[in-house]
């Protein structure tokens, strides 16, 4: 019964307007409290920002750096509000986490030229997993509010030789655009797309985990960016313009008929030309 309920919950989150994700998720959890943990870990929400006052840096909040009501900063590696025994990455993993944060900080600067990023890692039996988060808000110019959220969850299964690993990446990019203008009224275009990819790669000093993961994330994010562009500004716009025609439909039909006549005439001319 709970499996079916989880499927329905996820289906519901795919249909309800993403503009109200947080409220919908909260209501859903109230409705079926037994699904709470599973829902929190599988439904992506827009990322929230918190301030690490000790380090003077912002970091991002998600289910993976949460313990109870506290969140762990990737910079100071402490919980806010403080926790006595909050869950922490192992020492080896924390070293990797520090490097990963520095690496993706640079990635973020090169592609996003601003924004906030955070990487959180946790141990698995035969490897480790992690989430790479990025949030970038637009500056509000042209009276358009925009925001981008990236959530990349990577699972790394290390082969026993330690010389290669299997990487599984699930990436979600959220894009939010809102305007309120006299001509177009309120326009709220938002939501997310999710993709998955799996790869094997060799692990060495020349090609450490962070480089392998970085390459996968970069390629994936570039692909998703293109798809977002196509879907948001191509597909949904086409759907709107398919609902109503600014031109009288008869004009369009006349144009189509004319185009067909021209095409036929051209074919006939070509056929004639070939027989000469």
């Amino acid at each position, binding site marked *: 019964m709970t499996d079916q309920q989880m499927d329905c919950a996820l289906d519901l*989150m795919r249909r309800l*307007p993403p503009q109200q994700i947080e409220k919908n998720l909260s209501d*859903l959890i109230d409705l079926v409290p037994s699904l709470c943990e599973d829902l929190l870990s599988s439904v992506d929400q827009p990322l929230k920002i918190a301030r690490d006052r000790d380090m003077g840096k912002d970091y991002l909040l998600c289910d993976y750096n949460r313990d109870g009501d506290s969140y762990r900063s990737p910079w100071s590696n402490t919980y806010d509000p403080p926790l006595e025994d909050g869950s922490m990455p192992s020492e080896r993993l924390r070293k990797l986490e520090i490097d990963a944060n520095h690496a993706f900080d640079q990635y973020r600067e090169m592609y996003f030229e601003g924004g906030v990023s955070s990487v959180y890692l946790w141990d698995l039996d035969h490897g480790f997993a992690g989430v790479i988060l990025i949030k970038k808000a*637009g500056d509000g110019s042209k009276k358009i509010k925009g925001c981008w959220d990236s959530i990349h969850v990577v699972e790394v299964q290390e082969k026993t030789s330690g010389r290669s690993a299997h990487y599984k990446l699930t990436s979600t990019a959220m894009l939010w655009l809102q305007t309120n203008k006299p001509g177009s009224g309120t326009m709220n275009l938002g939501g997310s797309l999710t993709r998955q990819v799996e790869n094997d790669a060799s692990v060495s000093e*020349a090609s450490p985990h962070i480089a392998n993961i970085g390459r996968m994330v970069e390629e994936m994010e570039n692909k998703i960016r293109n798809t977002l562009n196509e879907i948001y500004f191509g597909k949904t716009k086409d*759907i709107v313009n398919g609902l109503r*025609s600014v031109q009288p439909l008869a004009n369009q039909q006349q144009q189509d008929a004319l185009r067909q006549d021209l095409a036929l005439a051209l074919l006939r001319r070509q056929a004639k030309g070939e027989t000469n």
Partner: protein
Amino acid sequence: MKGDKMAADNDEPITDQEKVRIVTNFILHSPPGEFNEVFNDVRVLLNNDSLLKEGASSAFSQYNKDQLTPVKIQGSEYKALITEHNDLGGGRFFDDRSRQSFKYDHLKKEASDYQSWTPDSTTEQWRSAIESELTTYTMSHYKNGVCSVFGKIHQGGSTVTACIEDHQFQPNNYWNGRWRSQWCITLPQGSASIELRGILKVQVHYYEDGNVQLVSSKDVKENLTSTSPAELAKEFVRQVETAESEYQCAISENYQTMSDTTFKALRRQLPVTRAKIDWNKIVSYSVGKELRSQ
């Protein structure tokens, strides 16, 4: 986030009334063409059919009216629309155009039990003139559009309300969309100009490997000066056409601006170097930084 305060603080289950509120809200927010799927999801999650029927059936009716749902009716080549303006209560709706009232099944989305209906006489000449012009307009701009015009008399005066609906449902391609417009005039006492008010709404849902939605609306206010029904109807529709086209074009323009400026400024296609990142460089810089800081 679990940390945020929710109604179920400290694991106290919420009341049935709260559950009904949540479920009703979900149903009312079903994207166009996806009521059945949302209904089925909600049914499984609530897991209490009698509570669902008793508490949420009003949501089915509200949803259909909000969506300006088209319905085939017998004895008319034109469909009618289910709206709040032609709701007679008890599950019955009226259609001025075909002079019928009917019972509407909100789950099956079918009309039945037809009875004859007389449109309101005070407004009928205005209503039918507008209906005639508006129907021509609707056929001309909406491939599968449906329009309904209602005349009503009430305390404030008499009103003529026009609704236009068109939709495209393509669940096999993971998308659905709907356009709704509602236009209303209050017939004046005397020769004052008539205020024309419109509400335009567009919703698009794309859900292949994701959930992307456009939700847009615009309020319009214009003035009409014609005095005869025939002239008023023409002016009414001219204003409607102008306003709806302006809205549609402004949406397209916004799309262009969003894509060219806002989206580009959020994330570049490639770094300034115009090449993908050299991860070996990035990683060795990080490691170097770490060594230097020790």
